[in-house]
């Protein structure tokens, strides 16, 4: 096992497996976010369900491990890759041969990580440690997460931040999605095209979903 992890492909395996896990988490996250459109009660109830003991006690550590593996191993690979060409070329022309996203995954990932810190302090930190309002639904006291979230989405620069982050995440996914399958060996000449199409569609759904919801609340705030 240790020789497996020591090998470049072993580390890449961890980056791709954790990446796919995070990719599937994005779908769950977006699904939960859609409840925002259903109004205060629907969102508060789903948020309450997500925060119940058995969901959160499984999800939180798994997500933390997923993020850590993804960040640690991709950083390690990126840093060690820096030393493989001590003498740089005078000219490099890759504009037609590779995608911009594929060449800048580390930067894109870094931008997403910066956003993640702000995002967690906006919501997760507030819900865990902040002063939250409670509303009673059918005898159960539930945190008013809806008001917290929608209040943030009335601040234009916060919304701008969320839209920009969805864009960076989209570019990261555009390469990351198919790249993960390639690294796992689940890829051949036929599936290459299919994975590309699925990856693009998935990226569009995720990017559009995560940017349109904040935009919707911002526009609603200024028009009503």
């Amino acid at each position, binding site marked *: *096992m240790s*020789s*497996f992890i*020591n*090998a*470049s*492909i*072993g*580390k*890449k*395996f961890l980056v791709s497996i954790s990446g796919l896990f995070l990719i599937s988490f994005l779908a769950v996250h977006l699904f939960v976010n859609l409840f925002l459109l259903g109004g205060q009660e629907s969102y508060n109830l789903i948020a309450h369900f997500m925060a119940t003991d058995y969901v959160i006690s499984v999800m939180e550590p798994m997500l933390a491990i997923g993020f850590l593996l993804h960040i640690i191993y991709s950083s390690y*690979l990126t840093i*060690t*890759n820096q*030393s*493989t*060409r*001590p*003498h*740089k*070329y*005078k*000219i*490099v*022309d*890759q504009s*037609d*041969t*590779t*995608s911009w996203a*594929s*060449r800048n*995954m580390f930067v894109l990932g870094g931008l997403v990580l910066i956003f993640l810190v702000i995002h967690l302090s906006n919501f997760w930190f507030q819900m865990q440690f902040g002063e939250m309002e409670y509303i009673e639904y059918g005898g159960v006291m539930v945190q008013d997460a809806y008001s917290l979230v929608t209040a943030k989405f009335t601040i234009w620069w916060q919304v701008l931040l969320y839209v920009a982050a969805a864009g960076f995440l989209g570019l990261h996914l555009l*390469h990351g999605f*198919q*790249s993960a399958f*390639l*690294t*796992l*060996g*689940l*890829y*051949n*000449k036929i599936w*290459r095209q299919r994975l590309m199409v699925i990856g693009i569609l998935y990226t569009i759904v995720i990017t559009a979903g995560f940017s349109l919801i904040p935009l919707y609340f911002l526009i609603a705030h200024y028009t009503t």
Partner: protein
Amino acid sequence: MEFNLKIWRQKDARSQGGFIDYNLKGVSGEMSFLEMIDYLNKTLIEGGEEPVAFEHDCREGICGSCSLYINGRPHGPEDLIATCELRMTRFKDGDTIVIEPWRAKSFPVLKDLIVDRYAFDKIMQAGGFISVNTGAAPEANSIPVSKEAADEAYDAAICIGCGACVAACKNSSAMLFVAAKVSQLSLLPQGKAETAKRARAMVEKMDELGFGSCTNTTACETECPKGISMAHIARLNREFLLAGLKS
């Protein structure tokens, strides 16, 4: 045609090296890129200067020795050809052409445009073969091979070991080369038996020699003169992961 050439000159492996500008007149469009350098060298020798050292052998795209990084791309601006197959008609009269050697820690420059690609041989020695007892060649038709497997193996077997994949890769990864070798052998019954061992040994050697880790940018595939597909990298990954599960 007339060209302004900017060529990397380096006396030997220990020297610093740098770009030297040459203005070359009287180049004809039919000349291959290497013939253009031959012509430059002729003028250099006539002027009492040291000719530019570069590698070449077959000059028909099959040996893999030619290895020039031309205007930011290995083997020049055209896809699916080696430097020796590149014609000067591809350039415009008066163009500036920057010619560099392959750049990678694992491919040190020996002189001018010649790099040491012995690292590839070391990877091959680690597992790029089939262990057989010597003796009379067996009857070729006694081991059936499907047409699909034969074709796919052939697609990998046409790798000429030029190193353009390493030169093109932003991580100087040798994955496409190693993938071509592992893939070719693992597709055929004679090579299949040792696939796990081979994949592990060749990948370990590749890592040890200082090649970078592949990030699937596909630069190698586009620049490979033989069009070796990323699908072979996927097969190498698969074989390596399966080898890991078995161990």
